[in-house]
């Protein structure tokens, strides 16, 4: 599944954290896999792989993007 980041919720510090990883709204991400038991989700963003824990993923507003 491909998604596009629309907005980062969860306050300035979280936005800063995403910024400091070079992640900004408008970036697209491909979902690769989940860990079991509400574990993190692994995504591919422009060739880099990131794991986002459940609580983090909840704070990222995305829209599905057509392939």
């Amino acid at each position, binding site marked *: 599944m491909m998604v596009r980041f629309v907005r980062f919720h969860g306050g300035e510090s979280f936005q800063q954290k995403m910024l400091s990883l*070079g992640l900004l709204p408008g970036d697209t991400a491909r979902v690769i896999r989940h860990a079991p038991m509400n574990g993190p989700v692994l995504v591919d963003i422009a*060739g880099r792989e990131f794991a986002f824990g459940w609580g983090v993923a909840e704070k990222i507003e995305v829209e599905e993007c057509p392939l």
Partner: protein
Amino acid sequence: MRIALIGQPNCGKSTLFNQVAGYRAETGNFSGTTVTFTESKVRVRGEVVELVDLPGTYTLSGTNPAERESFCYIVSHQVDVIINVVDASHLAQGLSLTMELLELSRPVVVAMNMMDEAASRGLTIDGPELQRLLGVPVLPLVASKGRGVQNLFVAAQQVGQNGNPPARPVYSRDVEQAIQAVRLSLNGQAAPLSPELGAIRLLEGDRALGERVSSTNPTITAMLIQTRQHIFQERGQQAEWVISAERHGMAANLAHAVVQQGECRTNWRDRLDDIFLHPVWGYLSLVIILLLFFQGIYRLGSILEQPLLAFFDGITLQVATVLVPWPFLAELASGLMLGIAGGLAIVLPYLFPFLIGLSFLEDIGYLPRIAFLMDALMHRIGLHGKAVVPFILGYGCNVPAVMSTRMLEERRDRYLAATLATLVPCAARLAVVFGLVAFYLGPYAALGIYLFNLFVIALTGRVISKLIPEDSPGLILEMPVYRMPSLRAVLQKAWFRGREFIFEAWPALIIGSLIFSIMTYLNLEVIFNALLLPLSWLLGLPPQIGVPLVFGILRKELSLIMLRQALGFVDFSVALTPVQMITYTVFVVFYIPCLATLTVLKRELGRRDMLSIAGLTVIIATLAALAARMIASLIY
């Protein structure tokens, strides 16, 4: 001449540094932070150059300590040239930091690292074109194999001697207008920053700079708010996001212009995660890898430990024989030997193999995979996936476990992870559990103690995270690609970490041993029995346990060895009931971490937290031992 190395995490910057710097490099802390940088002197064509390895950051405009300190270092020190290491296989990402560096008015050289990896991903990069577009030298590099290192430093030296700063990237018109407006009213007050850089930083909401400037020029605050508001109205986004997004966009355009994507071959590394992160095989391989890891360390450790201890026992005996006429000196010498041998017996056989294994797992890229797999479980005790590493290490030795909490960003997470890691029974406490409980009461009783320990750790985690709730949303982790690390890099990393132990914890251990030997000589150690009388009464233990418990703080296995002396029986089953054995062992497993761990705790978290953790462990140990006493009375 001073050269600063800067780049994003996993760009191979430290590999480059280690290629040229060697083990003489000095690691320092930025004052008041845990952010470290490394310095070394390097010879370039006969000239001695200072090389500084700054922490890896994606950006300089963020607010985390590494970002702030890297920025402050470059603008406040005499940095003659910046070497910006960029991962060629992720060029768009890497160049966004380059965009920021071009604003600093310092000469910049771009090192395009991992060209081999980019090639294997089917990427062709037009280096000369990138050099033309950026206006700074761009050099290809394969730091892991040492290719291009020489040329890079020669180019950096030349650029540093010329001293011409590059032109900064140009933003869209409204942002440029805002920059110029702020620049004009700044009046050069942002020094040592250039007025333009000061203006950009202020627009990006740099609080420290804002406060500094407004203290002498109050009008600027209102002007800044107005300008930022104007951008917000025009763009629908805060100014810092507009600027970041523009840099992001410029970097992406640059990469687009110079990178050609050819046929991409999937290689074995892309398939590895199908196993290592699999819901079933992933956990199975985790267990196997950890078993191999610990097995390897114990095998190696026990091969080294026996001859070392025999050697020191020999010396101690000889020294004691020579010093018989002077009992005070003999006692002092035995204390000294205890401290020296204790350090050696911990450091050489176990800590170093441990740190080597840890660096290997880290450099090959496996640690983040463990964090991914364990994140859900770690949330139950108020932490997230990254905090699993201190726990695993803790079963070997608490010292590297506490050191590894440094990889957690939040202070609260570091505190909680360090507290819980010190409750994990290390190899020395394993000796107590086995020597006392497993030997006299059987392996299931020992297993019971380990399970009880896990339960107490989980409970403590839950209670503490109720008191200091998680304020970060959780795990955000970049998964690096698997890489075969060079032996040299692994050994160097292990040495850097181990050396802190040698120079800080070991002297403390020796001094502690000397103090205790003086007390023994003066027969003062019985005071401990008296002082701990309330405790031994509460736990239903003989009063003689005071001395072994206090000595156990020096080295945990002493709480077993000294117990034999203290009780005066070789066979524990004569002096202690099964319930007493279990109660004592449970207390030993949890109470105050050993002196070496305390020293590392103080270094990582500060004196106050070190004391609070020590105090907390006594409370936990007492409660856990009471609970164990009750449970054991039901069984025996």
